[in-house]
């Protein structure tokens, strides 16, 4: 294929089309950037407000104008937060549950995605259609019976219900199948097969290294989902020492008279780790998301 000439041509015509785009007039550009910057301010202001407010006591927060710059009460708020809830313990629980879930999800979903993308076997299309259909079933009808299933398994107040049901999930498998189907050439696997490698070995040595971008995006999605998961943990976790951060934080809100700064500091504690992860991995994450949607 004459990819080089094609590539060269499209680059040229792209730069030409830049000049021809009609929205690119000065007024149009001003409006578009105003919209983008305005939206970015709206999306980021609450984060800034969180950082500022976590350094003030209620008495300072409830003034006009509300404080827009940092105060000196971060340590006081921090000490109060540790009194109100076992913050570090909850943070550890959230971190452990999210990490274990993510590792297992990546393994089982990419394995199944490989199975669907690169094998031909009886019933494949039907099984895959069934898998896709389960994506459309709203979780709410499973909420009550799931709780009862977990109770009968003796899993209330354990991590199992928060990890095990999701490790081979339909979304992750669909995601990995799309990517493996598009990104892994068949001759790569054939070469390995001729060398006598069995299928799991091919998955581990050949498939996994090629699908890192899709794994990275799925890892971030899974970790974020588990880190922020609220409804089911709220139902399953009974003892305070088992709480994940969102569950622990939800008790803050209902404790009357909790300092506002303390509540906001707790919120900051839940947001900062995941936001840092997102910012560090943002480029790979976006690239992986777009790659997954190619098909």
């Amino acid at each position, binding site marked *: 294929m004459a990819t080089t000439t094609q590539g060269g041509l499209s680059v040229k015509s792209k730069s030409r089309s830049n000049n021809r785009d009609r929205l690119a007039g000065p007024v149009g550009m001003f409006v578009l950037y105003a919209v983008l910057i305005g939206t970015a301010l709206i999306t980021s202001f609450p984060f800034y407000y969180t950082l500022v407010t976590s350094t003030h006591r209620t008495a300072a927060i409830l003034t006009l104008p509300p404080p827009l710059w940092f105060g000196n009460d971060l340590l006081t708020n921090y000490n109060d937060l540790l009194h109100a809830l076992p913050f570090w313990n909850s943070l550890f629980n959230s971190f452990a549950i999210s990490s274990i879930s993510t590792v297992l999800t990546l393994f089982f979903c990419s394995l199944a995605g490989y199975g669907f993308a690169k*094998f031909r076997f009886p019933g494949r299309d039907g099984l895959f259609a069934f898998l896709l259909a389960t994506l459309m079933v709203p979780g709410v009808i499973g909420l009550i019976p799931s709780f009862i299933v977990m109770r009968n398994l003796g899993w209330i107040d354990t991590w199992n219900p928060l990890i095990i049901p999701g490790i081979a999930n339909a979304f992750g498998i669909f995601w990995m199948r799309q990517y493996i189907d598009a990104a892994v050439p068949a001759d790569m696997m054939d070469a390995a097969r001729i060398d006598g490698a069995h299928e799991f070995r091919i998955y581990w040595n050949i498939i996994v290294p090629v699908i890192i971008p899709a794994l990275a995006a799925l890892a971030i999605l899974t970790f974020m989902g588990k880190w922020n998961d609220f409804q089911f943990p709220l139902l399953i976790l009974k003892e305070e020492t088992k709480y994940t*951060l969102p569950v622990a934080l939800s008790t803050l809100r209902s404790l009357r008279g909790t300092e506002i700064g303390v509540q906001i500091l707790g919120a900051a504690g839940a947001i900062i780790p995941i936001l840092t992860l997102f910012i560090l991995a943002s480029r790979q994450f976006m690239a992986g998301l777009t790659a997954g949607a190619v098909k």
Partner: protein
Amino acid sequence: MATTTLTTGQRKAQDRRTAVKEAKRGAWAYAFISPFYLLYAVFGLFPLLYGLWLSFHKWDGISPMKWVGAANYVKLFSDDIFWYAIYNTIWLFFGATVPQLIIALLLAFIINSNFIRGKDFFRAAFFAPNVASAVAVGLIFGALFGERYGMLNYALSAVGIKGVDWLGSAAWLKPSIAMVTVWQWTGYSMIIFLAGLQSINLELYEAAKVDGAETRDIFWSITMPLLRPVIVFQVILSIIGAMQNFDIPVILAGGTQSSAPGGTDRAGLTTVMLIYWTAFKYTNFGYAAAMAFVLFILIIAFSYLYNRSQGRNPTE
């Protein structure tokens, strides 16, 4: 491979060998995909059927279940609170999810145009609210929306608008929940739309331009039709998600310890909140299961109606 030079017998033998190989490989494939089906059978399908069974019983979760036939469903149809919760949920779909999808689509178009700089920054800034836990977001906006000293009312007063009691009054509770939902979810939908836009083959645009098509024509006859499956997909997932709205309303309108959820006059009570409370606070499992099934049927109906309205669209 030079299969043409083989005799029929040789070819048959080879076919058999490939068939055996395929079957062996198939066994691997079944092993690879089986975890999903095993887990779904236990934690997906069984609860679904069990929930249906439960909805025909009266049960407090401890004592023996009592068969009551369709009584739960009959009671449901005249239960004002349930229908009010459904109304709130649908209100939030139109007040939060629909605007959120429209804004997301517009932002995706802007970011996708090739003369905008700083795409990486804007993409990340718009998506950032989605990484925050709904509980944390609820706490933060709870403070931002304060009636007397909240930042929002202060900003409004600065431009001469009198603030309102965002979270305390029945009239403003749903708009408040809607604003937070739009804030948190617009970036997510935008990324999905953007991924769809970027998967459109650039050569199509080039060809249209060579043929002298206007930007507007290109938008309506290339971009929109090709983006349409992505939009339909995202809208259906949003319907499913919005009908199960829980996290943000529960934090903004009635904490988890409160006995009557939904805030002032239950204005912020969503259907899943009501189901949650009915089952786990009022321990009326059968009735809550019936509510969940009615909601399930409504979700299927709305998704189906939307999908059909799209299929019949004359512009396609």
